[in-house]
Structures are given as structure tokens and as C-alpha cells.
């Protein structure tokens, strides 16, 4: 029996993790924002980091995406060439290239992830140009295609996102991020500032794109409904620590830790 178990695990282990976090800690003076966080993320896997404000989830996201250096610990990432690299050993140019190609980052506020004064087409096309595309016609065609995929009327391609509604801006930000076919997308409360009806539409869209493109996603949210709809696994954070982790439906339907039980019981019935 033990041998059979091992054989099965071997088969599952044939794909390597995309990102590995090892004992990540971050302190600001005496305040520990993040303590001893470790996990592995596999291709196509959606991990939700949940917790209330101040739990350290946004700090963790910044460390994972190489925007903030940890006080201790490592983040390693398997690059497109198959070689796993420690993020802190990447040069600035390499890190920027990773951010423009293999990674996406969807901010809560689309104004942070978009250039508000240039056209929607240019917002999407810019990422393509950054990876060396230079044929105007093909860039525009790909940009229109992506606007369609995120359900933005292609007639609006020459309008700047400051003329867009909040939901459209967020969908445009997603198109801009996905156009280079990244393998990993970070999302920071992507539905945070949106009306409920707009949220549902965005979540639906994200859910189908994630499955279709086999994206790995690390999503920070305080909304357990978002975690349930989008994620395979959750990590519950409190006071900078991961206090509970597991399959999303396990953690939400059978929460073990007092704090997780409090979070789950605080959801208003639909």
C-alpha cells in the first residue's frame, strides 16, 4: 500500500512548483508585518490569501511579487527557461522584464495599473511593445481581441480609461496584464471598489480566463465569497502569520481555528 501511495505522489509531483516562498518575514522596526510564511504554488493553481486589514496579506503580496525585500526568507520562481531563481538575486532589469512578461499585477485601484490618459488600445499595446512587438497593425488587432475578451466594446479602443466606468477600468487592467500571456498573476483586492453586480461579472470573467489560460494566481482578498469562487486553496492570515491553510472549501466549510471560524461566521447570508 505504501508503495502505491508513493507511486501516485510521484505522478503528481512531476510538475514542479512555479513559485516557492520559504520562511518569509518582514518587520518594520518592532512591528512584524509578516512572520515565517512558507508555501509552494503550482502552475494553474489559484491561491487566495485572506484576512482582515493589517493581517499582513498585502505586505506578503508585495514580497512575493518582488516589490519589497523580506527581512528574512526567500522567494524563488521558475523562469520560462525552466530554471528556478531566487528573486533577490535577479538584477533590476531582469525583474522588470519578468514583471512585463511572465507576471501580471492587478491592483485594487485600476488607476495604479493603467495609464489613465492614454487610449485603452495603447494601454494594452504598451505591454506588447515592451516585449518587442513593433508591428502597429498586429498590436492593434491583438489589443482589440483582448478588449473583446474582457467584454469591452471595441468601439471604445481609442478612448482613455479615465472615460471608463470602474468595472470597465478593472477589466481593461486585466486585459493589459494578460496580453503577454503571463503564467502568474498577482491580484490585490481586484473587486474591492466595485458595485456588487459589477463584481459578479468581473469574478465570472476572471474565473473563466484563469481556467482557459491555465494561470497561476495569488489573490489577496478580505472577501471570502471571492476566495470561494476563484481559489483552489486559501491561506488565512492574522497578525502577520498564516494561521490556517488548506483546500478552499475545506477551510470555509470546516474551519478549525477560532479566527477562521469568526471570519466564516461573519458572512451575511445571501
Amino acid at each position: 500500500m505504501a508503495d502505491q501511495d508513493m507511486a501516485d505522489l510521484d505522478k503528481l509531483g512531476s510538475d514542479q512548483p512555479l513559485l516557492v516562498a520559504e520562511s518569509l518575514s518582514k518587520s518594520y522596526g518592532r512591528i512584524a508585518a509578516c512572520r515565517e510564511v512558507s508555501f509552494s504554488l503550482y502552475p494553474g493553481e489559484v491561491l487566495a490569501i485572506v484576512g482582515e486589514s493589517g493581517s499582513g496579506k498585502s505586505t506578503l503580496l508585495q514580497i512575493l511579487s518582488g516589490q519589497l525585500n523580506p527581512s528574512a526568507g526567500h522567494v524563488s520562481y521558475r523562469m520560462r527557461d525552466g530554471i528556478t531563481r531566487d528573486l533577490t538575486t535577479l538584477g533590476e532589469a531582469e525583474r522588470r522584464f519578468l514583471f512585463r512578461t511572465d507576471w501580471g499585477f492587478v491592483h485594487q485601484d485600476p488607476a495604479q495599473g493603467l495609464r489613465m490618459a492614454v487610449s485603452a488600445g495603447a494601454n494594452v499595446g504598451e505591454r506588447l511593445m515592451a516585449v518587442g512587438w513593433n508591428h502597429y497593425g498586429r498590436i492593434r488587432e491583438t489589443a482589440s481581441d483582448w478588449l473583446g475578451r474582457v467584454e469591452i466594446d471595441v468601439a471604445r479602443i481609442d478612448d482613455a480609461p479615465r472615460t471608463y466606468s470602474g468595472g470597465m477600468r478593472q477589466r481593461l487592467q486585466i486585459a493589459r496584464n494578460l496580453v503577454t500571456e503571463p503564467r502568474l498573476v498577482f491580484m490585490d483586492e481586484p473587486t474591492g471598489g466595485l458595485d456588487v453586480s459589477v463584481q459578479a461579472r468581473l469574478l465570472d470573467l476572471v474565473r473563466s480566463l484563469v481556467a482557459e489560460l491555465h494561470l497561476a494566481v495569488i489573490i489577496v482578498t478580505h472577501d471570502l465569497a471571492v476566495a470561494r469562487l476563484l481559489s483552489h486553496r486559501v491561506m488565512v492570515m492574522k497578525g502577520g502569520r498564516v494561521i490556517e491553510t488548506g483546500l478552499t472549501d475545506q477551510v470555509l466549510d470546516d474551519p478549525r481555528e477560532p479566527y477562521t471560524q469568526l471570519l466564516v461566521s461573519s458572512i451575511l447570508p445571501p
Partner: protein
Amino acid sequence: MTVMIDIADAKKTFTMHLQGGIELPVVSGVTFHVNPGECVVLSGPSGAGKSSILKMIFGNYRCDSGRIGIRHRGAVVDLATAEPRQVLNIRRATIGYVSQFLRAVPRVATIDVVAEPLIVNGMNRADAQARAGELLHRLNIPERLWQLPPATFSGGEQQRVNIARGFISELPILLLDEPTASLDAANRAVVVALVAEKKRQGVAMVAIVHDDEIRHLIADRIVDVTSFAAAA
């Protein structure tokens, strides 16, 4: 014969931290097995832990102790200790779960809700939709509803969509939580026929059925859950 589900001494307790850490014993000493092509029906009064056992077999509830052996791709995996990724693989390839209520994504059309398990396992969309259409047809969901999301359907219609989604896959294990609860006689008969077909295909099933007549029609064996009642 190769056992598909082999549960040994499984135990589940809820600790309610918000109620002063009250311990709520659910079940203990759960031990039974299910063979291919067999439908085991769990019996016992409400609150005896039938649904909890089903959720433990699906990996939705975690076990405190014991073993949930599942035959998955030719090997036995203990679901009680499996890694999350492994549980997901088992759900994709081995265990299906028909819950009492449909939990559908807001905007997805009924036909796609039903076809999804096949698409996830690699079937092309058109073939998967054709199979979904056949099942919806058998379950008397009129074609004019197929392109609508099931959220606005009646309870019985949603339940039938849920059944179609559960029975469409070719998974070797199916867990059925009250599959006929809100159905009329004609649709109950369809579900009985679907269960019989799954048995012929060698699918191992565990079901909760309150209706005596249906239970009589689908059960090969009855496991009385009251014997697993945890001592309070």
C-alpha cells in the same frame, strides 16, 4: 474485487471556538467499504452524521483520525491525509459529488454548467454540450432554458441541473446527497435509471436517500449510521 472506497475508524468532531470551545462530536469509528458497481445507502435519522460522512469522503470535511482509502488511478490514496493538490486531482478524476443544492457561478448558461466536468477533463466543448443536452433532455429540462443561468430556476429544476452535472462525468465514484429530494415521480424514476446505468458501468456510489421507495430501488447495501454516533 477491488474496493473503491475503504473507510476505517474515521472520526469527526467540530470544535466551536465561538461558543466557548464546545466540542461537538459528529461521528466516530466510521468503517465501511464500497465495491465497484455497488450503491451503498447511508441510513439514520437527521443529525446522525450522514451528510458529514459524505463530506469526509469528498475531502470537504477534514477527519480528526482514521482513514479514507480511495482508489484513484489504480492506487489507493488516503484522503484523510492527502495534500490539497492531491484532493483536487482525486475530485477531477475519481470522485463526483451531487450536493443537495446547486452552487453555480452567476452568469454561466445551464448547458455549460452541466458540460463543465467533461470540458475540465479534456473533452471538446461541442461534444460535451451534446452530452449535456442529452442528460438535460432526459431530466425534462426544456431546451429553451439551456442557455439561461440556472440561478432563476425553481428548486426542482436546479436540483435536476445539479444531477445532470453530477451524472455527466465518467468518474468511478459518485456521492449522492438526497438526489431525489425535490423531484416529482417522473424525474425520480429518471434518477433511479441513471443510478442503475452507473452501476452497470462499475461506478461505486454512496447515497443519502430519505424516500423509502427510492432507497429500496437503488440500495445494494444499507449502512446504518447510528452505529457511528459519537458519544457526546
